[in-house]
C-alpha cells in the first residue's frame, strides 16, 4: 500500500494543463512536418508552414497553441495498491484544472449548464475518468479538447451485418461531413465495440495514443493504415483548402461487444491534438 496525497495529484494536473496547451506532442509535430514535405499546392504548403511556425511560437513563448484551450479531459489510472489521502479526489482534480487555467492564461470556456449556459469562470469541472489498474502508482493524463473538432464527431449503433464495410464507410462519411470545420489536418479516433458509452470513450482514448503508434492487433493496425490513406484521398486538405493532408493520424481502439450489435464512435480532433501524461 502506498499513500499518495491529493495535493500531488492537484499540482500535477495544474502543470499538465499548462504543458498540454502550450506544447504539442512530438509525434504530432513529426506527422505535420512529414506531411508538409508531401504537399505540392501553394496554399496547402503555406497553411502547413504557418501551423509549424505557430507551434514553434507556442513552444518558445509558453503560450497556448490554440485559443480554444478546451475542456480538460483528465484520465487517472490508479494503481490498486494506492491509498489516496487528503481531500475529495474530484475536488483536487478540479482545483488543479482551476489553477492551471488561471496561471497558464488559458481560456475559460466551460458553461455550467448545457441549455441555460453561463460560464463557470474557471474552466471547471474537468471531464474525469478513473480506472483501477495493477500497481502502486497513478498515471495522470490531461487532454484538453477543443470543440471545433468535438462537434464533428459521431456515433452509430450498427447491426453486425453492416460488417467491416459499414465501419469503413462511416469513418469516411464522418470525415467528409466534418470537411473544413474541425481545422484539418485532423486526427481521427475510432472506438469500435463495447456499449454505446464505451465506444465513445474508446474513441476519445484513441486520440490520447501517439499517432506514430499502431494497434497491437495487426488486423486493426492494417485498418488504421488503410483508412488514413483513404481519408487522404478525399482531397479536403489542410484547412479544407484542398490538398493531400486531410488527416495526420488515425487510431482505432476496440472492445468485445454483444452478439446483437457493433457500436462505432468517431472522435475527431484537429492538428492541435494535445495530451500530456505523468506517472506519480
Amino acid at each position, binding site marked *: 500500500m502506498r499513500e499518495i496525497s491529493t495535493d500531488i495529484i492537484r499540482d500535477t494536473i495544474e502543470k499538465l494543463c499548462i504543458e498540454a496547451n502550450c506544447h504539442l506532442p512530438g509525434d504530432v509535430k513529426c506527422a505535420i512536418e512529414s506531411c508538409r514535405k508531401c504537399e505540392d499546392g501553394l*496554399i496547402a504548403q503555406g497553411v502547413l508552414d504557418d*501551423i509549424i511556425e*505557430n507551434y514553434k511560437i507556442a513552444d518558445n513563448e509558453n503560450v497556448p*497553441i490554440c*485559443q480554444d484551450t478546451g475542456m480538460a479531459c483528465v484520465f487517472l489510472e490508479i494503481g490498486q495498491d494506492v491509498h489516496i489521502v487528503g481531500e475529495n479526489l474530484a475536488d483536487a482534480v478540479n482545483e488543479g484544472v482551476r489553477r492551471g487555467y488561471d496561471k497558464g492564461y488559458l481560456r475559460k470556456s466551460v458553461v455550467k449548464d448545457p441549455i441555460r449556459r453561463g460560464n463557470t469562470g474557471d474552466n471547471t469541472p474537468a471531464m474525469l475518468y478513473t480506472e483501477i489498474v495493477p500497481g502502486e502508482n497513478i498515471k495522470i493524463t490531461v487532454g484538453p479538447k477543443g470543440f*471545433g473538432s468535438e462537434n464533428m464527431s459521431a456515433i452509430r449503433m450498427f447491426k453486425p451485418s453492416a460488417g467491416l464495410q459499414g465501419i469503413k464507410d462511416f469513418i469516411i462519411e464522418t470525415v467528409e461531413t466534418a*470537411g473544413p470545420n474541425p481545422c484539418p489536418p485532423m486526427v481521427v479516433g475510432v472506438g469500435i465495440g463495447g456499449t454505446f458509452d464505451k465506444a465513445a470513450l474508446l474513441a476519445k482514448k484513441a486520440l490520447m495514443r501517439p499517432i506514430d503508434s499502431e494497434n497491437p492487433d495487426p488486423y486493426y493496425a492494417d485498418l488504421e493504415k488503410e483508412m488514413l490513406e483513404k481519408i487522404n484521398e478525399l482531397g479536403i486538405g489542410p484547412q479544407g483548402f*484542398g*490538398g493531400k493532408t486531410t488527416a495526420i493520424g488515425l487510431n482505432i481502439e476496440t472492445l468485445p461487444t454483444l452478439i446483437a450489435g457493433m457500436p462505432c464512435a468517431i472522435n475527431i480532433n484537429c492538428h492541435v491534438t494535445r495530451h500530456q501524461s505523468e506517472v506519480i
Partner: protein
Amino acid sequence: MEKKITLPLTEEIAKTLKAGDRVLLTGIIYTSRDAGHKRMCEALARGEELPIDPMNATIYYVGPTPAKPGTVIGSAGPTTSGRMDAYAPTMMSVGARGMIGKGARLPEVVDAMKKYSGVYFGAIGGAGALLAKCIKSAKLIAYEDLGAEALRELYVEDMPLVVIIDSEGNNLYELGREEYLNSKK
C-alpha cells in the same frame, strides 16, 4: 503573392477579392462569436443601436485566451463560423461586410454575401499563437460579462488570410478540393 488590403472593407474593395486569394489585412476589426452575435441581433430586433458601427465592418469570429502581462492579447485563432450562420445575414443587412473565421457556411449566408457584397475570409484554425502576432492593439467595447466572448476592437497589421467565399459566391472549399482531385486524375 498576397494582396495587401487596408480596412474598412468597402464594396469596391470587396468586389476585387476572389476565392483563393491570399490576403494581408490591415486595419480595425471587431471580435464577436456565439453569445455576442446573439446579443447584437437581439438589439437590432428591438430597434436599438449596436455598440459598433457596422457599416463596412469586418468581424473576426474569435474568443482569445487572456493576455499575459505585457502583451496585447492571448492566442487568437478563428472559431467555427457555422455557429454564426444564424446571425450573419442580419449583420450584413446593416452593413457589416467582412467575416473572418473557419469552416463551412450555409447557403443563406452565401446568398446574403452576394446580395450585400460580403467577403468570408479564412484564418488558420489552430494557429492562435501565430495570429496573435499581427494584433497590435485590443480594446474592450461591450459585453464584458461574456469573458472571452466579449466584443473587442482590434487593430491588425498584415493579418494573413485566405478568401474562402467571395462576393460572387465562389467557394474555395469546393474549388480547392476540386482542383486537387483533378490534378491527381
